[in-house]
Each structure stands twice: as structure tokens, then as C-alpha cells.
């Protein structure tokens, strides 16, 4: 506990030195319209279940003008190269059944609305499912194909494609009924301090969003923009990869992508963005 306070003290001091102009700046006022047509809601009243925040903001609002510009056009946004690749894979048969995704789903457009409501309770499976889990279920059980690595390139490209056809639609994940137990578990994880640094998601993303942590402009940690092209590693990143990185940065043994803990956390964090537009695939730092 003491160590965490000392660290936060150091961080605050460095942030203060780093630039008075930047410190304490909340989200900016910019508006996001993609390709001149998809109007994105990047600010909304916080959903009822959130006690400590009144207004929710997309991570886009915390990025520099140059980074924001990269997402406003499907050519400027490098993610779209991999979305196109996934669209080709969508049409390509794979597995023992000789089927492609297109055999049942016709075209990616028919999946509009899907990303907005995932993670979601699956009655037949008796569990909350993420898009990745659903894709692998289709691959294994309907296509007779090998499952993809949960946060590997093939999977993340496909999730980016599925997200792209829901852009502009409001995130709307269910947190009640059969999903409630998973959601409560995710909420507990969100508020648990992990690692040597004893930091919880809330410490940064709820209590300090808008502040600078060293030179990073802290967002609310919303995931409506995932999968996201990060300038830092110049590739598409999946949500669980990001969760893993965050927890690893608290110097904890982190959960694995695809684990029940991250599925629960994804459901909870997605619900904190209910009302924002699906932006994936987005561009972030």
C-alpha cells in the first residue's frame, strides 16, 4: 500500500514536470465522423450501474489531433488492410465441412449489430461468450476447422471485420438475467488491486482519467474501439491482449487471453461503455 502511494507520488511529480499545459486536461471537444458518413457517439451519460462517473467518453477523445485524424478515414486507418484480409478469409472455405463463414452468414454486413451486444449470454452453451469464442465455436463445430489462437492475428482480424460492420451502432451489452453473475465477477476484478504496484483498473481509469500518467493521457479505459491499431506496436490489438498488458504493468501474474476472468472483465468493461458507438477497428496510441 505504502509503495503504491510512493509511486503515485513520484508519478504525480513527474507528470507535473512533464508539462503544465498537458496536466489535468480532460477529454477534448472533437467530434468523430468516419469517412464523412459514420457519426460516432463519443460522449454519453454514464449507464445507471456506474456509481462514480457521470459522463462516459470514448478513448478517441483523449488522443492527440494527429492520432484522431488517422481514424477518421478508412484509408488513413491502417486497420482496414487486415479487415480486408479477413473479408477474403470470410469467403474462403476452411475445415472438413468445406464451408466458409459466408456459407451460413452470406456476407460480413449480415453481422451488423453483433459486436454491439457482445459479450453475450449463450443459452445453449450456458456461458457468456465473446465474439472470439463464438467464432471458434463456428469453426470447430460447424466448419470442422481448427480453432484460431484467441488473440492471434487471424482471430483479431476477423473480430475487426465483425466490429467494422457495427460501427456507429450503440454498445448495448446485457448485464442482467443469466449474464448477471459473470458481470458481477467482472466488476469485482475491475475494482481489485493487482500486482506489486497494487493498482486496480479503477485507480487509473475511473479515479484519474483525463490526467497524465507520465506522458500518456489516461482514458476511461473504454473498449468500444477494440480491436484497435496501436501506434505503439503498429498492429491490431485484441481486448484481452490489452487487459493482459495492463495487469502485467501492475507487476502481477496476469490472466490469460480467453480466460473466464477476462471474459467476465470484458463484459463488465463493455457495459461501462453502453451508449457509446462501436468504433472498432479504431486507432489509439
Amino acid at each position, binding site marked *: 500500500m505504502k509503495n503504491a502511494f510512493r509511486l503515485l507520488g513520484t508519478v504525480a511529480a513527474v507528470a507535473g514536470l512533464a508539462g503544465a499545459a498537458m496536466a489535468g486536461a480532460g477529454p477534448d471537444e472533437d467530434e468523430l465522423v468516419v469517412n464523412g458518413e459514420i457519426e460516432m457517439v463519443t460522449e454519453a451519460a454514464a449507464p445507471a450501474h456506474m456509481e462514480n462517473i457521470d459522463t462516459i467518453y470514448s478513448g478517441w477523445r483523449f488522443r492527440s*489531433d494527429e492520432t484522431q485524424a488517422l481514424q477518421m478515414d478508412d484509408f488513413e486507418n491502417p486497420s482496414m488492410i487486415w479487415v480486408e484480409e479477413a473479408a477474403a478469409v470470410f469467403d474462403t472455405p476452411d475445415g472438413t465441412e468445406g464451408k466458409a463463414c459466408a456459407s451460413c452468414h452470406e456476407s460480413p454486413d449480415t453481422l451488423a449489430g453483433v459486436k454491439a451486444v457482445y459479450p453475450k449470454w449463450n443459452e445453449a452453451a450456458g456461458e457468456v461468450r465473446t465474439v472470439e469464442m463464438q467464432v471458434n465455436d463456428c469453426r470447430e463445430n460447424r466448419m470442422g476447422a481448427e480453432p484460431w489462437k484467441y488473440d492471434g492475428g487471424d482471430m483479431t482480424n476477423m473480430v475487426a471485420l465483425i466490429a467494422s460492420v457495427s460501427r456507429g451502432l450503440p454498445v448495448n451489452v446485457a448485464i442482467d438475467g443469466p449474464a448477471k453473475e459473470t458481470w458481477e465477477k467482472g466488476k469485482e476484478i475491475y475494482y481489485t488491486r493487482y500486482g506489486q504496484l497494487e493498482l486496480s483498473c479503477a485507480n487509473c481509469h475511473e479515479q484519474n482519467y483525463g490526467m497524465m500518467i507520465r506522458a*500518456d493521457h489516461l482514458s476511461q479505459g473504454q473498449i468500444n474501439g477494440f480491436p484497435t491499431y496501436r*501506434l*505503439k*506496436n503498429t498492429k491490431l490489438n485484441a481486448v484481452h491482449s490489452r487487459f493482459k*498488458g*495492463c495487469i502485467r*504493468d501492475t507487476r502481477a501474474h496476469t490472466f490469460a487471453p480467453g480466460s473466464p476472468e477476462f471474459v467476465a472483465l470484458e463484459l463488465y468493461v463493455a457495459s461501462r461503455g453502453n451508449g457509446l458507438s462501436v468504433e472498432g477497428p479504431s486507432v489509439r*496510441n
Partner: protein
Amino acid sequence: MQLTRRQSLAIGASAIAALGLSGLPAFASATDDLINEFTGGAEAGAGELSLTAPEIAENGNTVPIEISAPGAVAVAIFADGNPTPPVATVTFGPLNPTHAVSTRIRLAKTQNVVAVAQMEDGSFQMAKSEVKVTIGGCGG
């Protein structure tokens, strides 16, 4: 003269501080050499050449820059704080009306991006822009 440990530490610290304040002479002169190679030693003054770069780069991996060089045959771009300063050399063809180019570059740390244009009349122009490259926070 016998230096006490305290004195030699103080001299050392101020020498390092002085170096820090004056920037990194080693890299800057490597860039000067490369610029001289491009211009053949000729002076490069101000002109219509313009270089647009962000004041603060959100991530040094991908920094968008824009160059506009009306009347130029070619533009050489350098990053004077990178381990190897050359960034690109752009030559404009007969079907290029605006002699402008935008791209995204890697900057290892806070430094100057320098554009040197070779004009049609054989003269040279130069434009410089300092970009602050920040260390991320908890970026993971």
C-alpha cells in the same frame, strides 16, 4: 591542485548538465555532414519550403509529417536525433504539380526533423521542426 571528492563530483555533475542543456552535439553534426553531402556544401536558406510536424508526438513510432516544396526537384529529410538520421529522399517527377508529400516517420526521441530542398535553379532551402517525443505511461 588537489580536488576534494565533493569538488570533483560537483564539476562532473555540472559538465553533464552542460552537455544536457546543449543537446546532443554528436548526432547533430552527423546530420550536418549528411546535409552538406546533399547540398555539396552550398548554403541552404529559408524559402517557400515548409515542414509540418506535430509539436508533441503521441508515439514516436508513427509521427505524421507533411512537406511542401514548391519549385523543388527533390527534398531530403533527416531526423537529427535518430541513430541514423536519414529519413527519406523524395524526387518529384514531371507529373507532380504541387511538390508536396505526406508520410509517417519514426522518431527515437525529442529532436529536430530537417527538410532540405534542392531547387530547380540549383539553390537549396531548409526547414526544421522540433518534435517532442514522449515516453508513454502505462501503455502496456
